[in-house]
């Protein structure tokens, strides 16, 4: 269990993914860890945050006492709107998603497989599930990033050869940030791109359930300047 505390905080994981966002990107953040991406300081970059319930261009969480009771993000949190925001209904919101206009979706996951499959909607042994918009997003976004703890509470790896629980989508994940590092899904397999400070490559390997492509040099995870 000691690995869980090791390495990056959740905010640092999300910061690292947020660094990849390009100017003008339309971004959809999943419930849970990924929402922390919106705390990143994007500087001059203009990032448009989209939420499944039809909010295009939302801003930071509303300060306590200033909430607009008519306005929440996909996680039900009260958010603010940025200038230029627009509201659409659910069918148009998913038109935006399915037509491939979401440049990146950052999602949480239970498991990511080295072939790019991932699972985030159904816990083992559960009846039914909580899909929300994840299947639409995962199938259609230009990039799918995952932010998750490297291991389960029981110390089992979440980066695996094949998903053991039902997949959300197949072969779609591009980039994964965990507390131990940054991982890219390549055609050759899962590559360790950056490693968390204070974590050894051996530690990453032993906490991972699939082969890892380890470059000769693995730089530390880039952090906010």
């Amino acid at each position: 269990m000691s690995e869980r505390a090791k390495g990056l905080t959740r905010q640092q994981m999300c910061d690292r993914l947020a660094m990849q966002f390009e100017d003008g990107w339309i971004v959809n953040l999943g419930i849970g860890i990924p929402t922390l991406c919106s705390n990143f300081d994007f500087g001059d970059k203009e990032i448009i945050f989209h939420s499944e319930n039809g909010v295009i261009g939302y801003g930071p969480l509303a300060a306590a006492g200033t909430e607009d009771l008519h306005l929440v993000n996909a996680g039900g949190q009260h958010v603010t709107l940025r200038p230029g925001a627009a509201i659409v209904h659910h069918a148009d919101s998913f038109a935006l998603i399915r037509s491939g206009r979401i440049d990146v979706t950052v999602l949480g996951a239970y498991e990511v497989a080295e072939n790019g499959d991932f699972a985030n909607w159904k816990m083992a042994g559960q009846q039914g599930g909580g899909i929300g918009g994840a299947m639409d997003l995962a199938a259609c976004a230009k990039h799918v990033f995952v932010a998750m703890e490297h291991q389960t509470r029981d110390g089992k790896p979440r980066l695996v050869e094949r998903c053991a629980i039902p997949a959300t989508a197949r072969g779609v994940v591009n980039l994964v940030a965990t507390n131990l590092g940054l991982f890219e899904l390549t055609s050759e397999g899962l590559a360790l791109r950056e490693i968390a400070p204070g974590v050894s490559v051996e530690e990453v390997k032993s906490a991972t359930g699939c082969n890892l492509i380890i470059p000769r040099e693995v730089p530390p995870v880039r952090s906010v300047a």
Partner: protein
Amino acid sequence: MVRQQAKDGSRGMGARNRIYASFDDAVRDIPDGATLGFGGFAVVGMPINLYGAVARQGAKNLTCVSNSTRGGATLPADAPDMGQMIRNGQVKKVICAFTAPTRASQRLILSEYVDKGLIEAELVPQGTLAERMRAAGAGIPAFYTPAAVGTELAEGRETRVFNGREYLLEEALPLDYAFIRAYQADASGNLRFRRSQRNFNPIMAMAARVTVVEVEQEILPTGAIDPDDVHTAGVFVHRIIKIPPPPEGWWPQPPGSIVR
């Protein structure tokens, strides 16, 4: 003007007879076995008062369509929602994008009933759910979507390749009744929603044979909403009811103000 009985709820475009005096009046004719859609996303745009009226009305063997079966944390524990209808034994089937808790710590009334085999739960990706209702409202019987391809939800189902990509066939999801919440309405049924209150609500209104709307602001005279500013045209709306102030009417509360 108040109309006590809807002779033909599926039509009734007349401005003069859309305004109902009470939630109970507006849901009186729901038959057993009907398919009902409930709008809203989290609490925003959720027809809390109409949930209560349908629970009191008591129709059974209902198929209920909504994003999820609970309204989120910003409602008091005794507020009406689909959970109340489930406990009432009114629900035969739910069609939702969430049919299980999303966290191990969460409890869902639905789960107990599904586990016992008392309710069938059809899990549908949120975009597919919206599009299936949009299709119903647009006279499109079926369409293809990329969502859920390759997953458990597509097992045994028909897929087809277009331009080299695999898509899943999905059929329209028509509703007998849509229950939604709007910000403003004029007497001819034209609606406006505020901010993320819009969500599923315009889609459900178009998918339904009868659309029943709880309205937050005083009902405006016909034509008070500029034709360019109407979100849902009155031709899709059949019954409107002004929500009374609390405690008679249910309203979402600011976060932190809820004692559960």
